[in-house]
């Protein structure tokens, strides 16, 4: 483990496979294909929240995940959401729904979505992010920092947490994640 990171160039992502200890508690990490946009409400936030109904979402203006029809809104700030979808054409769909009360910015090229699971995940996250994870209910989200890397994360369901990091920070984030998970083991799908 230590050897892999010692010889791996800093800008190169962690190679797929098992890293660190091989325990039954180990953590699995994979990348999810998703398109991403930022949605920024103007002054009329109520209308933006009302219009989200058209996408099947009850939009929460807080650090929470609000799910809709093949779309998810993650609160990143007051009147601001990171919107993710597995479908193509997200930007057009959002712009049609929310203009002119909110602006949409395409982020898909700049962001990477990761999903982690495994028995040791809470212990790994405790080393990564400065958050009180015990207080996180399902769907709770946070925009914070891990090893000086800005990221947005949320508790997706009982066993899975998801992360959004800048694409150019992926190698550094994987390195930090692998170090935090080393004592339990990391199964990185690549």
């Amino acid at each position, binding site marked *: 483990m230590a050897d892999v990171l010692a010889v791996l160039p800093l800008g190169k992502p962690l190679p797929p496979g098992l890293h660190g200890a091989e325990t039954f508690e180990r953590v699995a990490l994979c990348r999810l294909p998703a398109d991403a946009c930022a949605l920024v409400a103007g002054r009329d936030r109520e209308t933006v929240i009302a219009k989200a109904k058209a996408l099947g979402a009850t939009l929460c203006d*807080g650090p929470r995940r609000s799910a809709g029809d093949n779309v998810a809104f993650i609160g*990143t*700030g*007051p009147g601001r959401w990171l919107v993710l979808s597995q479908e193509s054409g997200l930007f057009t769909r959002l712009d049609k729904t929310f203009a002119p009360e909110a602006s949409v910015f395409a982020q898909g090229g700049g962001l990477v979505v990761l999903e982690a699971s495994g028995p040791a995940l809470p212990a790994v996250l405790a080393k990564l992010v*400065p958050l009180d994870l015990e207080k996180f209910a399902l769907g709770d989200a*946070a925009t914070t*920092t891990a090893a000086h890397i*800005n990221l947005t994360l949320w508790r997706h369901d009982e066993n899975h947490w998801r992360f959004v990091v800048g694409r150019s920070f992926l190698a550094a984030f994987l390195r930090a994640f692998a170090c935090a998970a080393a004592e339990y083991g990391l199964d990185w799908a690549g």
Partner: protein
Amino acid sequence: MLIPCPYCGARDAEEFSYRGDATPVRPDAAAPDAAEQFHDYVYLRDNPAGAFRELWYHSAGCRRWVEVERDTLTHAITATRFAAEGRRA
């Protein structure tokens, strides 16, 4: 030190950037002693031991300016609000 952000909840101070005193108000540029007043506004700050109203930027979180009422002796925080709300009040 944990700072209760109005949006994010209690977060470590390392997520914030410190700006300082939240109380100075931009002087009237048309006033006859504007140069003097602007000098004070830009350069002069109190350094109180005790209750203080200050600005913190939640740079690694919701990226909002937060006005924090903090005791500089005990670090006890009694109130926080978005800076824009403080200006409106």
